[in-house]
């Protein structure tokens, strides 16, 4: 049992079909059967003979000096194999981090946030490990906590990180600011004079958790060569590897990483969690070590979405044209940098939204504080801004007496618009069309909860809790639209690698696609098989498990994988196809003149001319030959934003979605039921329409969650997390989620593979402000904070 489970993970999956199954079809997931039968091996399912369980002792306070740590009693516990602290780290590299290596593997001298890892235990049973961890005595001397902009930048503020020397430290106004990005374009003061109406607003966005269902977990197996095999759920194997190997003091080729089943990610697995800890314990004990967080620990074990304060001023002329925009966006990055710099870049460069405004004065900063570390989450940076600018658009339209959707359409950006960064938008930007479509969709019927047997509470605010039978219920409708960048921006060398192999197996041509792309549920593996079928004309495609035996695929984040790793697979397939054709020309070139003259394709297992004439079976071309190659692929390069003006061609591609929310609000109790949340999105090209719709509906629902219920609540006095559980951090149930009709637009981006557009994040942006707008429409309240809580609606 043990061996099959460890070595069989993750299983190779072969996808084949009678139909062509290429791009544009809704082919089904190659891992579907394994996932419905319970056999798909997630990282927490790993098991090994004689394995130990790792346990992490975390800080009980947010900010403190560590006076002493006493592990003796824990070490003396029967069944305990190792107890490790900072002192046991094997090399001089003791920190890690995505961009800034400021995160200690284990706390040294100081803890900077609630739940920071302090010590590790390995034992023969999870309960033994927990009991031993509880016996470790840590003495803390508490320090004052930094929890917001005021406390972070006060003259006497305690520095979260002393002696910063990272590449942002030189340009930030205060050491407790991770990164600052201003964007200045045009002349706001002058443009302001043209404004007939001015609208200001202050908005607060709460801290959201990714709340992926599969907890952080993995298995580290020490190997005979002194290295370690790590099976783990992550978004980016190679980024992990770069951070893990130096801490272990091992060359990268001795840390062999394999992606195990990933139970969702949404940004929360871009940073390391238990990876180094499991490896340290495995190398120390010489035994396999499994670590599985429970839900409580998971809330401390990954970064969250940055909470934000956003200050906006917009102006418009009386005929509804936007004149200018000023904003300041303060993102709370918490104790460690994680992806904060990128979040600042997105928030600032997308703070205008999908609108044309020539004169802007923008500033975005991320703080260091003693709050939980924040980093990547679906739509990072753009989500917070969208919540604020869309509220502003409604206020402006109302002040002008214009229709809210028409006002947006009047100011909508389009292809050719110059972004505040000076970058021209050089592919379709159908913002006005998306808004038109979303508004044209039929509205759901009123009072659907009424039935012959009385009110069906399941369809009313409050649901099963039986709070209203229609009393106090008011309907509201709201609209929003958003813009998200696709891929890694600001000059990052964003590439992916694909290894594609083609051979004849059992009389049939078979392609094998090997990438390090983390399949986190999004369906990249489905799409890779489709691309291989389209490009190589095969039915059978094997998707090799993702591991570090192939080059980096980059992160499964920023809506980039179908674009970038999809692009890499397409590119590798094209090169393999050329090789196959070369072999064909070598072997059969003399049989038919078309071998030399025509454009040749691989289709349906055959070599065909672009006119459709069959020249040969691939099987006969290849015979025993195997074609295999590995290639890196890059999208066009981007530039860094200028640190004072914010100018620069920083982004690769943009993604647009619009939502219409229909809500029913119990205005007396302040409870909300979202009745429908319709979405229109331009996807460029839907490589797999079923998956595209699944992404849009899933992203939409995460936006709904943050609109009405989701927030990690941190005590401002202690910086301690108050609701680290699924009992008190609520995510939408199936009774909270409405029907989500989706209208998919496909306007090709000529720069992207197949014309596709990254799609995963855009629907998370506009969903939240649409729901807020609908609640405002129902209640007449201003509502400048998300999530909306019942007491915000009742005024009590």
């Amino acid at each position: 049992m043990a061996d099959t489970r460890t070595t069989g993970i993750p299983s190779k999956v072969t996808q084949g079909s009678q139909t062509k199954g290429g791009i544009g079809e809704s082919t089904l997931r190659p891992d579907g059967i394994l996932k419905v039968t319970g056999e798909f091996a997630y990282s927490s399912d790993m098991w090994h003979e004689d394995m130990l369980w790792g346990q992490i002792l975390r800080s009980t306070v947010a900010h403190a000096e560590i006076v002493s740590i006493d592990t003796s009693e824990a070490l003396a516990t029967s069944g305990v194999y190792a107890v490790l602290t900072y002192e046991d780290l094997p090399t001089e590299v003791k920190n890690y981090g995505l961009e800034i290596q400021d995160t200690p593997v284990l706390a040294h001298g100081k803890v900077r946030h609630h739940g920071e890892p302090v010590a590790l235990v390995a034992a023969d049973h999870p309960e033994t490990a927990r009991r031993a961890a509880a016996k470790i005595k840590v003495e803390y001397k508490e320090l004052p906590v930094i929890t917001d902009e005021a406390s972070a930048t006060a003259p006497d503020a305690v520095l979260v990180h002393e002696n910063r020397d990272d590449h942002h430290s030189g340009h930030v106004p205060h050491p407790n600011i991770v990164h600052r990005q201003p964007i200045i374009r045009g002349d706001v003061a002058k443009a302001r004079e043209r404004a007939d109406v001015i609208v200001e607003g202050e908005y607060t966005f709460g801290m959201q958790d990714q709340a992926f269902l599969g907890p952080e977990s993995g298995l580290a197996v020490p190997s005979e060569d002194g290295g370690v095999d790590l099976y783990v759920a992550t978004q980016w194997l190679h980024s992990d590897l770069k951070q893990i190997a130096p801490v272990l003091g091992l060359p990268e080729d001795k840390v062999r990483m394999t992606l195990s089943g990933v139970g969702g990610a949404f940004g929360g697995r871009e940073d390391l969690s238990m990876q180094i800890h499991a490896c340290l314990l495995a190398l120390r004990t010489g035994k396999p070590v499994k670590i599985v967080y429970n839900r409580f620990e998971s809330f401390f074990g990954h970064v969250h979405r940055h909470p934000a304060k956003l200050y906006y001023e917009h102006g418009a002329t009386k005929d509804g044209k936007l004149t200018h925009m000023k904003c300041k966006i303060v993102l709370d990055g918490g104790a460690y940098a994680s992806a904060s710099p990128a979040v600042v870049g997105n928030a600032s460069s997308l703070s205008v939204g999908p609108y044309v405004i020539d004169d802007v004065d923008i500033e975005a900063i991320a703080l260091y504080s003693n709050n939980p570390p924040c980093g990547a989450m679906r739509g990072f940076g753009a989500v917070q801004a969208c919540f604020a600018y869309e509220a502003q658009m409604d206020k402006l339209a109302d002040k002008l007496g214009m229709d809210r959707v028409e006002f947006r359409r009047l100011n909508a950006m389009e292809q050719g618009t110059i972004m505040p960064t000076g970058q021209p938008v050089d592919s379709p930007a159908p913002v006005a069309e998306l808004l038109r479509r979303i508004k044209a969709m039929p509205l759901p019927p009123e009072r659907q909860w009424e039935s012959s047997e009385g009110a069906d509470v399941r369809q009313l605010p409050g649901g099963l809790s039986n709070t209203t039978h229609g009393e106090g219920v008011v309907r509201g409708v709201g609209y929003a639209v958003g813009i998200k960048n696709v891929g890694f921006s600001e000059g990052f060398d964003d590439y992916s690698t694909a290894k594609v192999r083609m051979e004849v197996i059992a009389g049939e041509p078979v392609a094998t696609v090997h990438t390090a792309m983390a399949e986190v549920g999004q369906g990249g593996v489905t799409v890779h098989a489709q691309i291989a079928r389209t490009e190589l004309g095969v039915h059978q495609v094997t998707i090799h498990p993702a591991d570090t035996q192939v080059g980096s695929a980059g992160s499964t984040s920023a809506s980039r994988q179908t674009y970038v790793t999809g692009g890499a697979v397409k590119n590798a397939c094209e090169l393999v196809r050329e090789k196959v054709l070369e072999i064909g020309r070598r072997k059969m070139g003399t049989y038919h003149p078309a071998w030399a003259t025509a454009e040749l394709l691989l289709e349906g297992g055959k070599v065909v001319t672009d006119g459709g004439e069959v020249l040969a079976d691939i099987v006969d071309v290849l015979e025993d030959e195997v074609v295999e190659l590995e290639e890196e692929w890059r999208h066009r390069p981007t530039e860094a934003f200028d640190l004072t003006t914010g100018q620069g061609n920083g982004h690769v591609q943009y993604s647009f979605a619009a939502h219409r929310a229909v809500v029913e609000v119990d205005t007396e109790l302040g409870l909300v039921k979202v009745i429908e949340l319709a979405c229109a999105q331009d996807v460029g090209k839907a490589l797999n329409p079923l998956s595209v719709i699944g992404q849009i509906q899933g992203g939409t629902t995460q936006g709904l969650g943050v609109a009405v219920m989701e927030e990690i609540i941190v005590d401002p006095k202690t910086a301690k997390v108050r609701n680290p559980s699924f009992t008190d951090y609520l995510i939408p149930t199936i009774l909270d989620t409405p029907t989500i009709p989706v209208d998919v637009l496909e306007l090709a981006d000529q720069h992207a593979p197949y014309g596709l557009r990254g799609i995963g994040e855009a629907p998370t942006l506009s969903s939240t402000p649409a729901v807020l707008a609908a609640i405002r429409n129902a209640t007449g309240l201003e509502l400048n904070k998300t999530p909306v809580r019942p007491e915000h609606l009742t005024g009590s």
Partner: protein
Amino acid sequence: MRVNFTVNGRKQEADDVWEGESLLYVLRERMGLPGSKNACEQGECGSCTVRLDGVPVCSCLVAAGQVEGREVVTVEGLADFAKNRSCGGHEGGACGTSLQEAQGWSAKGTDSQTGEGGISPHATLAPIQQAFIDAGAVQCGFCTPGLLVASDELLERNPNPSDADIREALSGNLCRCTGYEKIMDAVRLAAARQSEPEGV
């Protein structure tokens, strides 16, 4: 302590069980049945849903010692469980009709390119499993086992559920990926296929 119980029709025995272990832990870590998932371990997500003497429960909240002598069905046994049900509950008994039915589902599976034989030892899937694949109700899949067990039990009780019935029955199963729309589709699909006359 030692615990004996029946899992998916087979007698199982677990030794050296710590008294605080849950049924979920025993299934996952001692019986090689990790299909039931450990997403919250506080009864808030339904990922660990199993049938305990036929009743859907969160296995994370059942103490291992409480299942002594009882019968558990997990997602790993769902296909067989559904097959037995369709032949009238004769446990392990052969049943011509259901076999045909099962092959029917299997054929549909091939149509929809769910994969090749040999990937999985399962010749057949329960109708609800097939419907989840076909409807696109699976993304990361971590919630899927619990949803399958809960949905299968719903359709056993109520073969033609309304949308509100489906939502109520699945309100204890969180999904973070799909927004639930495709899950609704899957249950509707399974219900519709279930009500199709045989052989169609």
